[in-house]
């Protein structure tokens, strides 16, 4: 293995109020959840959006950018007219592989030893 491995973690956000008074939903900071996990991020992404044009012209209108909704790690964000891929926080669930309405995501497992490592599972 030649790639320089860097353990990366998204930075946690500011602490939130500890106890909400009622059942109304606080805005969830996904970074706070991802911060709990352990990763070894590879240098290159194992997730590739194949044709950004499809996201922009077709998915946006009909699905409000599907991957930005269902991805449990918010790997995908729509920013500046394109989908950005923050693969470092990927939980490797495969939701985008099967869930992209246009099969527009090229999906690989991270290379052996890279990616998320669950302590509890």
């Amino acid at each position: 293995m030649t790639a320089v491995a860097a353990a990366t973690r998204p930075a946690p956000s500011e602490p939130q109020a500890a106890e909400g008074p009622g059942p109304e939903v606080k805005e969830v900071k996904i970074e706070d959840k991802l911060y709990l996990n352990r990763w070894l991020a590879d240098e290159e992404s194992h997730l590739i959006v194949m044709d950004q044009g499809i996201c922009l012209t077709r998915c946006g209108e009909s699905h409000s950018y599907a991957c930005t909704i269902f991805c449990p790690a918010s790997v995908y964000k729509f920013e500046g007219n394109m989908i950005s891929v923050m693969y470092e926080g990927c939980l490797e669930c495969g939701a985008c592989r099967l869930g992209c309405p246009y099969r527009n995501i090229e999906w690989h497992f991270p290379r052996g030893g890279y990616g998320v490592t669950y302590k509890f599972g």
Partner: protein
Amino acid sequence: MGGKVLGLNCPPVTESTSRVPVAEARRGYLRMAVERYDAIVVGAGPAGSAAALTMARAGVKVLVIERGDFAGAKNVMGGVLYSRQLADLFPAWPKDVPVERPVTRQEMWLLDESGSALRVGHQSARWGEGPPHMAYTVLRSRFDRWFAAQAEAAGALLVTETVVEDLLKEGDRVVGVRTGRPDGDVFADVVILADGVNSILAPKAGLRPEWPPEKVALAVKEIIVLPREKIEDRFNLEDGQGATIELVGDATRGTFGMGWIYTNRDSISLGIGSILADFVKLQLKPYDILEHMKAHPAVRKLVQGGEPKEYMAHLIPEGGFESLPRVYGDGYLMVGDTAGLVNVIHREGSNLAMKSGELAGQAVVEAKERGDFSSRALRRYHERLAESFILQDLKKYRRVPEFLNRHRELFTTYPALLNRVVTELFTVDGKSIKEKEAWLVGEVRREVGGWGSLARLGWEAYRAFVR
């Protein structure tokens, strides 16, 4: 003194790491095995390790390839493990199985948006007997690591941090695997696909189609750490008891799925899982639904003050019998989640994985005795699967996924209706029972479409579940 497998230096072989006698290993058992194995297992989850263990015990030369740092590093489930299928592999229940708590009480909660909850549950004296107890909560990272080590101890060779990228074929026959390592081709008489719900190998080789987003559930889960006494107090448990709670209705905010809360020894597993297509349809993010459930008045006191320790996500194949692929062919077998062996209704998955792994392993042992790894010989695995409770149960429930999909109201509006009905009937407010009955009839007519519709629903449910 170690061996080389896939260009990796293996740790020295000792009595504790291999059942193959050390002397034999040093004479080159490992090196000989480098070129060629009887069987390769892709993935060291419960299915893969059960297969590897079964084969290794019968003297089959097995290589297990796992992409994680260690077996279990990538694996997630709710997590209840039914012990019987593990006990079938270990008649003397091992003392060191890393289980959390026996499941002595199971509950189902129907939540509504207003903060109400209708609870049904059962505490069984028999579930308290063990070990092995009927079911345990487990943490897969720990369990899978232990289980893979048992396969290793039986003589299987486990190589981690290695991704299998392709099946190697000669004509239609699977003859080995291509790994991501340099010079990473390995050959075997048979390859067992235990690479899970996200198997890239099976669809790529045309062995099964990709599952559509309507046929898989996406689950997210948190581990929330709490002191043991707090868990036992909040869940009304004694030492050595555990509870599972399944939550429907407002728990998943209208998506077709369920939430769950399971007690571990010093933590709680809490999650939600819904059909993948629904998140987009309802424009809801999985972790927002998770937080919504945590904030419900029936739930929030259970986890209050707990420290989240890990956040996970995983897919569940929920197509059932109608989505099952052919699980065997020339030189390959498919086990566990890879084949979609999940009984959603009974929350069974890892136990089906283990049993299917065992049955696949037995089929390979027989195939090796006859020297025949053709599709015809390996069909024996499918026959065993069909004779077992696995396919019998999945077949019995073959209409259930479609039935539930057609009647999402069972998971969305009906739990709320039931809460309203129970609240109204048991509220003492000076209205006569007769008045309340009239109200009830009106509610049922409005929500269900009258008693005829309810009867029709009952009949359809009977057809889906019973007939």
